[in-house]
């Protein structure tokens, strides 16, 4: 950890503390989930010619990277692209927060800065689009909860602040504004604590839900999906 200012140091300590809290809550979340009995399918494999639980699980887990695998992503490819940009932005935002505390020189590297900053900026634009989509589309309004709105708005702010912070850390604006990094780290810390209690924790469940449905439909023989 570097010590360019006491405020920044405090932000970094809070950030790591928040990370530990998140890890603890996530562990408890998983413990809670696995306390429920597993649903077992005792029926014989659905179709000997196609049945394969492992193949089904693998296909299901990685269909996020196969937009052709689902009609919803195949037909809604533009939306799928925004999904990809949005989640690359999340990775970039996390990278910025962590690397700024453990490898500040890397964060200031121009190549890293351009990749990370651009990703955050594009994700910010996508997030704004998603805010309007959720606010204006009747279907989205109907199914949205305060948590859905808040999570999205906070992420939008986080992407925006992240993009600006990355620009300043790299000196793109001509000078480095440490206060932006402090604000960004505090916002990230808030996120780390809030996320396990919000819809954003979906990524924790994602591997399980995908593998479970993949195994179930793989056993029956309908995964991987065949088309003709």
């Amino acid at each position, binding site marked *: 950890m570097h010590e360019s200012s006491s405020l920044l140091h405090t932000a970094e300590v809070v950030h790591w503390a928040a990370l530990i809290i998140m890890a603890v809550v996530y562990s408890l979340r998983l413990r809670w989930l696995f306390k429920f009995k597993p649903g077992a399918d005792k029926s014989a494999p659905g179709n000997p010619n196609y049945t394969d639980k492992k193949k089904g699980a693998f296909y299901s887990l990685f269909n996020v990277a196969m937009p052709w695998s689902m009609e919803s992503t195949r037909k809604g490819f533009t939306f799928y692209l925004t999904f990809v940009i949005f989640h690359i932005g999340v990775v970039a935002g996390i990278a910025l927060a962590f690397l700024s505390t453990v490898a500040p020189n890397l964060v200031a590297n121009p190549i890293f800065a351009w990749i990370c900053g651009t990703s955050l900026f594009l994700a910010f634009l996508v997030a704004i689009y998603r805010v309007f989509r959720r606010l204006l*589309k009747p279907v989205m309004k109907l199914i949205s909860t305060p948590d859905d709105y808040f999570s999205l708005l906070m992420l939008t702010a986080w992407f925006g602040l992240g993009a600006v912070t990355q620009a300043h850390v790299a000196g793109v604006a001509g000078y480095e504004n440490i206060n932006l990094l402090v604000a960004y780290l505090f916002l990230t810390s808030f996120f780390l604590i809030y996320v396990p209690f919000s819809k954003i924790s979906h990524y924790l*469940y994602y591997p399980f839900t995908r593998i479970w449905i993949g195994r179930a439909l793989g056993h029956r023989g309908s995964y991987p999906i065949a088309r003709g």
Partner: protein
Amino acid sequence: MSKPAKTHKIKMMEEQLAKKLNRQVVGSLVGCVHCGMCNDCCHYVLTHPDDPKMTPSYKADQVRKLFKANHDWTGSVFPWWVGADKVPLTDDDLDTLKDIAFGTCTNCRRCTINCPMGVDTATLNRLMRGLLTNVGVMPEGVRVVSKDQWELGNQMGVLKEDYIDTLEWMSEELEEDLGHGEAEIPIDKAGAKIMYAINPREVKYDPRTIKEAALIFWAAGEDWTMPSEGWDNTNFGLFSGDDGLGGASAKREYDKARELGVDKIVISECGHGYRSTRHEGVNWSGEAEAFPMESSVLTMLRYIKEGKIVVDPTKNPQRMTFHDSCNNARSCGFYEEPRELLRLVSTDFQEMYPNRAEGFCCTGGGGAMSMSEYTPRRLKSGEVKANQIKETGAEVVVTSCHNCVDGLGDVLKHYEIGCEIKQLVDLVANALVVEECAVMKNRPAGAPMPEVPDALKPDAEEAAAPAVAASTPLAGRRVLVVDDEEDIRTFLVTVFEDAGAETMEAADGDECIEKAKTFKPDLISLDLSMPGKSGVDAFVELRRTEGLQEIPVCVVTGHPEFRQVIYDRPVAPPEGYLNKPVDEDKLVSYVAHIIEAKDEKAN
């Protein structure tokens, strides 16, 4: 204003929910991010674009709210934050939930396979149905059908004697067709290799499929039987969400198969029947090990591949397309074999798009055919399927599901698409070249060779036609034809008269009563929707009028949604029920059977 206290039913639902939660269900409950990706995959959404409540995630949210309010950390402490404050509290709320869970979803699972998170939304909707059913909140049709399945062992309330009677009737028909009694349908034959389980719709509305299956089993030289009990492969537990009913219904089949000592249960063409018997029933009934089972489609395909039966595809020359049952394709991975079989028994197959696991529902899934109150919405949702079918240019839609036959029938009629609907068993039976099948080739030396009728010989379709036309199964019978549409009356009268009957016509309910008194018919063919006194009212009056109440009535209607209406009347149900457009042969054989059954009872 303070919220009303939870009713007893709501508390019971919450208790039941806790019992039904398993890891996979909880995963689906917590996994939804409300991204809206499932929206455009649902046939209800696509056909009701102005109604956001059709979106699958909204439907699943109904049970998700209950879960969050009672089991989720955030939902328990800050329910309003995650939408868990809008849980049902009163019994009126339950009626709304009933309409959502039963009336806006056929549990087709198309949203499930299109969810990026792997949320099984259809399973959540079934969970909600189960919670409602458990506290007695369900559509009347679901209640009646469930009751029949619990009490009589089949979902259409077919009495054991009627079932056996139908099997014997089909045996007689086969004997007439073949000219010998070798193909008689065996009942409760201990030690047979195969036990054939069917859909009660086959007994009640389409017994020809039983005859066709029997012909195929005979031609293949199969050692098979039909059970006297545990013969219903369908399972309303799948639709109502009642795992208890699901387990009990499936267990009847498994127990009977063990009692008879058969090697395998063969399940006739029924999507939800196949899924329930072959898969879900094993889990619901707590079977330690699944009994060997297969779809009749696989059985027929194997017979052809093994040379046990020989088929001539040119006997089915029309352009055909295939509709995948959602239960078969999405929940059982059963979609290639039906196509393989279809290609073997027909000459012009045109694929429908999208297909297989991505196909759209026929609109009849999830028990929708028994919920007449939702029929207008269901038919509107059928526009997607109708367009799919139209684009194929097919003359025949083939499907491997009795529910789909009814669902598609409604859709084709509603959207005025002139397509026939057939099942694979129809096509295989029609394409059989009996003289080259195993039963003829493998006869022991010295055994007499039964003569193969012209209708079952290769390229004998035309030769068979006059034989059918020449038969007069209604000779000496009097049929009163009641329908407000003159062209339909003319058609029905022609069919009945060609079959040897004497006929009289009536154009409305009043005329029906009047002519029934003077004409003294052996049977009344009754339309339901007519100006003036409707068919329903006329039917009730017939049943309540001395001297007329014993006359058998066969409803012939273009409004399948009235089925529930007429069966709900506080009088004896009609002896028969056929949907328009009606097949001539089916109409004649059905009516002849009703009259014969009445004669037998009278004697």
